[in-house]
């Protein structure tokens, strides 16, 4: 590896790091809330709501993220009613916003399944006890079901976070200049493919290591009752 090349590549790739972080941050924030809503819909007794949530997660988990990105970006961009609607066009016209939408909708589907598993693992007896104590439905969810479900779901959710970070690299195919987008541009300028993509890979690894550590710390915090009893 040439030092000069690394000096040229690193600042460029770091510019991309910010965009990758933005794509991940916003889509995870939106995706988690959507996913929680979908998980609750799925567990609802209303057949329409649970049916919708089920098909949503089947469709988004069953198709590749790249296909979804192309459908949203190139596909929806050709429909005239999208172009005529100011709000829809605001999202679809821009590669970054379009990528955030696709990533958020995609991670929402996985998150809903992870949270559904967590919610289902909460023992019925605990919920009944809370009910007997006179807690309202919302209070029961806030104090009993949600905290216990998150504890169960966190390891699997940490995995989903890592997958979302890696998924952001596909945004480079719809003109977004994130880490991979800049790496491709550097590739055609310098042809130093090995060096450029090795640095890009290292940056993804660093982001994911930070995320994994944060999730582990949160996990240790939520499970502190067990740590004490051992």
């Amino acid at each position, binding site marked *: 590896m040439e030092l000069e090349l690394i000096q040229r590549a690193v600042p460029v790739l770091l510019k991309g790091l910010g965009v990758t972080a933005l794509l991940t941050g916003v889509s995870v924030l939106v995706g988690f809330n959507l996913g929680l809503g979908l998980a609750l819909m799925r567990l609802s007794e209303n057949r329409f709501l649970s049916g919708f949530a089920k098909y949503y997660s089947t469709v988004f988990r069953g198709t590749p993220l790249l296909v979804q990105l192309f459908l949203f970006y190139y596909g929806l*961009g*050709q429909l005239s009613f999208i172009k005529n609607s100011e709000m829809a066009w605001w999202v679809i*016209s821009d*590669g970054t916003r379009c990528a955030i939408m696709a990533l958020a909708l995609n991670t929402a589907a996985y998150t809903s399944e992870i949270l559904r598993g967590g919610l289902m693992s909460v023992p019925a007896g605990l919920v009944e006890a809370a009910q007997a104590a006179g807690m309202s439905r919302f209070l029961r969810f806030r104090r009993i079901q949600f905290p216990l479900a998150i504890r169960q779901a966190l390891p699997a959710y940490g995995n989903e976070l890592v997958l979302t970070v890696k998924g952001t690299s596909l945004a480079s195919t719809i*003109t977004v200049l994130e880490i991979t987008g800049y790496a491709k*541009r550097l590739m055609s*300028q310098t*042809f130093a493919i090995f060096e450029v993509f090795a640095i890009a890979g290292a940056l993804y690894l660093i982001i994911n290591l930070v995320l994994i550590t944060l999730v582990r710390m949160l996990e240790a915090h939520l499970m502190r009752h067990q740590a004490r009893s051992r």
Partner: protein
Amino acid sequence: MKLKVLSLVAFLAAGMGSAYAAEGELSIGTEGAYPPWSMADAAGNVTGFDADVGNLLCAKLEVKCKFVVQAFDGLIPALKAKRFDVIISGMSITEDRKKEISFSNGYAELANMFVAPKSSDLAGIHDFDTLIKALDGKKVGVQAGTTHAHYLEKNAPKADLKTYDTLDQMQIDLASGRIDTAFSDASALEDFLAKPDGKDFQLVDVKIASSSDATLGEGIGVGIAQENTELKAKIDKALCELVNDGSIAKASETWFKTDISRPCK
């Protein structure tokens, strides 16, 4: 057994070095999505000006042509990894690329132009300096890894470059209004203007000759691995004959309605 494996390895290694000579086949890397230069259909057949050049070359060298379709920005890495023997894909000869691979003499030469909506302020521009100034803050589509991308990075640093893997994707975004203008070969842009999507667009009346800037290269040539000097000599000779006997001009007339062949030195 060990000897057998060793001799197999030796055989494979020898085969790689001279795949073309041994099998009587020339494998050609091409983009397959750059009309009218190189178009691949769903069945994998390649047509276009570059396919014609490839076929003429193979006939001259008395070998069989085999086309390998690959995204443009991956062509040079793939050639270096010996995925194919040569690149014929409207590739301009540039100093940067020459550090990686060698080229035959140029066989064609084209003007580079911008395309913009007829209603755009770019449409009425007729001189180079005004055009470059007008590009400030405009979203300009270019294809990844092309001379056009490098040219604008150098000459219009304030333009907001959007890079696309394929020309089709760039044209979709041009038609949908995501980008203000696109910069490419005049031939590729005329192909877009002929489509229904291109009806509200026009070429900006400023021709940027390939010879005007080093980033735009020295014409279009056949890419060959640096160590393959023997093949380069054969291809240079064959191309020269094809240019001189008018075969390349004829193929050019078929696809571009004009002669873009570059005289053989």
